[in-house]
């Protein structure tokens, strides 16, 4: 079980830079590494990520097709767009982005995650550039992408402002940054932690720490500080009757943001 790593992820201990340096919390990496095998089990520990997939992808498809003037109804609307998936985990988002035509680079500091992601993509013939690395290292190498997506990651990093700045600098001028995270509201505490981790058992306990959640205002400030335009926000909410997530104007709990970099 992941009990010990959960304790290690106590917020009071978070924030210590890992041996690899950079804006990364080693305890957080360890927790996701231990869950690595479960990434592609749609009814396993990452079921919530599978479930919110369609809503998140709908937002990404809408934003990218609008921003880059693509027709959204086809099979490969992202043809030839270079997309960086920061914190790709087992590749849950990298794979659909690649199927939609994007040339995807998926990065994750967890080696096990990248192995799982590679092993899952290969038999499908998906050509995804998976790397064990950090966003900071890519910045140092001078990498640029048409779009950078960073989903459900910022609530796990120690310094959100610096991390948003790092992600933004990987976007080429005229490109798009997409983030998603959880709002720091009482409702988010009730739903994303109490309900999801303790009552419904959707997520392992300790997956999230409430004080690491980020409000849209904060994200907006960090994005502005990174020199990007005003973000567009959209929430996504759970419908218990349909057992489905869908996009919503309600950003009180889970939400996405898209911001463009001036050309």
């Amino acid at each position, binding site marked *: 079980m992941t009990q010990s790593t959960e304790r290690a992820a106590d917020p009071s201990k978070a924030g210590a830079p890992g041996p690899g340096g950079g804006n990364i919390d080693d305890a957080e990496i360890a927790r996701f590494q231990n869950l690595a095998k479960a990434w592609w089990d*749609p009814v396993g520990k990452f079921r919530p990520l*599978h*479930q919110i*997939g*369609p809503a998140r*992808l*709908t937002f990404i*498809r809408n934003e990218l097709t609008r921003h880059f003037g693509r027709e*959204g*109804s*086809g*099979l*490969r609307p992202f043809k030839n767009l270079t997309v960086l998936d920061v914190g790709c985990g087992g590749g849950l988002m990298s*794979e*659909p*982005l*690649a*199927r*939609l035509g994007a040339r995807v680079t998926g990065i994750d500091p967890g080696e096990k995650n990248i192995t799982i992601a590679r092993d*899952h993509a290969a*038999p*499908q013939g998906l050509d995804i550039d998976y790397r064990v690395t950090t966003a900071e290292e890519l910045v140092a190498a001078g990498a640029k992408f048409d779009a950078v997506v960073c989903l459900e990651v910022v609530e796990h990093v120690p310094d959100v402002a610096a991390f948003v700045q790092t992600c933004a600098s990987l976007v080429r001028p005229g490109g798009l940054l997409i983030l998603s995270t959880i709002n720091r509201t009482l409702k988010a505490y009730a739903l994303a932690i109490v309900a999801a981790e303790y009552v419904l058992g959707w997520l392992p306990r300790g997956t999230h720490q409430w004080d690491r959640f980020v409000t849209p205002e904060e994200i907006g400030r960090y994005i502005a500080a990174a020199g990007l335009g005003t973000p567009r926000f959209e929430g996504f909410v759970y419908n218990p009757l349909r057992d*489905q997530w869908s996009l919503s104007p309600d950003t009180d709990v889970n939400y996405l943001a898209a911001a463009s970099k001036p050309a």
Partner: protein
Amino acid sequence: MPDTHSTRRFDIVIAGASFAGLAFARALHTALGSDLRIALIDRTQRSASPAPESRAFALSAGARRMLETLGVWDEVAPLSQAVTEIEITDSSLEAGIRPVLLKYDNRLTPDAGNETTDEPASYIVPAAELEQALYRSVATSPGISFIVPAEIARFADTGSAVAITLRDGSEIEASLLVGAEGRRSASRESAGIKTVGWRYGQTAIVVLIAHERAHDGRAIQHFLPNGPFAILPLPGNRACLTWTEDEIEAKRILALDDAGFLAEVETRVAGRLGRVELAGPRQSWPLEMHLARAYVAPRFALIGDAAHGVHPIAGQGVNLAFRDVAALSEIVVDTLRLGLDPGSLEGLGRYERWRRFDSAVSAAAFDGLNKLFSNDALLVRAARDFGLGLVDRLPALKSRLVSEAAGLTGDLPRLFKSEPL
């Protein structure tokens, strides 16, 4: 590992190139174009001159809207008859006069939640022509391959694909396999999905007739003691007769020469349409009901008769099949447009929850209707006459029934609402 070089890879493989399979291919192709690689597998090579066919379907308004949205309706519309009125009678075969029990205008009313008024709730469509039109709509589409004659021997989920082995030993791969081969579905058997069902000990007899007097778009359903008898109007003073008999009586009738068979037809039509002659082959099927215990498995889904066969009393089989097509194509198209895997159980589970309840209810309802009417007991007859008489006096209930039969109730798939995918 199989030699991947000789394994042909598709996105979607459809087993069975009849109504459901063809319509499903058409729906996917219309939405996503030729980038989507579809294969249709069928046991038989389509012949250049198809055998004559007497069958016709009572196509619901929802199913018709789907065909229209898929660009297939225009071709069959001139060969189809709008049903403007439905008449239900109930009497023994010997009774000279058949009192009309229930008669209703078969047009959708605005209060039934439909924007269009005056749209007939159903059309009678000749089966062969409908299948031809569906076939032509996909036959030359780039992106759609026909693998014929061929049959699935077995298939397995490899985790990233479904690996399908055909009877000739060749292998193909896809993200999703759809079983649409009808009630004897080889893919369903290969998936190990059992069915529940029973036989009625009845035979359905179908024949096409030409008649002297105009039918005025009126469909007639006589509930005879041996089972229902329907006159389904077609353009140009023709009609498709469908009736059920117990197996022994059916055998006798089917063995008659043309004059004898025509005499049986005339007894049932009871002079309503003037002089009658046979205009197509007599065809027959043993009646049975069946329902697959599951509609989906990993990378596998059933549509149409492969999933469910209902009593043909209400002519709803093809409508249920098209509703499967509309629901599954909507889910598959939405899934593919997000770059997600159409073979994953998340989407397929949604399809099953959407369709299974509906078709089970339909199967049970048609079964109940048949039992109610295939009965000469006085009490049963009195009860149903009273029930129908009641329906006749309640316009709201009537329009609700019309709407139900039109396939416009419940959680409608987009294609049934004339919305493209």
